[in-house]
């Protein structure tokens, strides 16, 4: 168990989540990708706390924030999907590309 191993795990989780967020058609599956990305941040925050600065609580606070972000992201995501679905029967990202640049 080293800091590098933990950070590589975090990077792997983040990249898998990024793949999901970029590639999934369903908006709820896209949110699963975002959750996996935040999951990687949780691992990295815990590892930084333990291996770099265990004396200060900063890493723990970061993990707390990341866990909260996960829960809030899911709640808001489902609210947006529900609103979209109600307004125009859309549950795919391709049906909601009004802001496409």
């Amino acid at each position: 168990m080293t800091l590098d191993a933990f950070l590589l795990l975090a990077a792997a989780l983040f990249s898998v989540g990024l793949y999901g967020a970029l590639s999934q058609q369903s908006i709820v599956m896209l949110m699963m990708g975002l959750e996996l990305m935040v999951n990687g941040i949780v691992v990295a925050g815990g590892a930084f706390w333990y291996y770099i600065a265990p004396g200060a609580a900063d890493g723990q606070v970061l993990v707390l924030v990341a866990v909260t972000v996960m829960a809030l992201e899911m709640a808001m995501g489902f609210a947006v999907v529900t609103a979209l679905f109600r307004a125009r029967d859309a549950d795919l990202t391709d049906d909601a590309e009004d802001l496409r640049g």
Partner: protein
Amino acid sequence: MQVAAFWALAVTAVASGVAVFRVDSMARATFALLASFLCVGGLLLLLDLHYLGALVVLMMIMEMLVMAVFMVMYMMNPAGLMPMTMIHNGRWALGISVAVFAALAAGIVLTPWPPRRGAPPDDPTYALGEAIMGPKMLVMMGIGLAILATMIGSVVLSTDRGRYDREDPR
């Protein structure tokens, strides 16, 4: 023992993370994601973060059970009756995420990380509580406000009528 547990949890976390986007059923994907979260909770326990590890485990079990209901609601390809591809732009997405992983891994391996400063407190949970009730109070207040805003925002977004609308306008 700890090293073996680390590798087992780490490999399972990434494998179930990959499984989220490989399985056909979105309900199965939810439980694959739950497995990944549980492994991360176990890893936090390995790092002596007992409170945060237990928090991740308990919170993610509840969150994924709620998520499973929504997944069934918005499921593409219900019961495997409509085989379809659930991805678009797969090649680009794969390329970008592999490149991001390579860049992150290079940064992780090449960065000279500073040596460890200080020792873990006897009770990390106590230290966390003191931090968020003391010098990190602003973080806690921000989290509280964000949770309140989310509660209001999600209700406003997901109801189909406003405060003064009648349920059946006559």
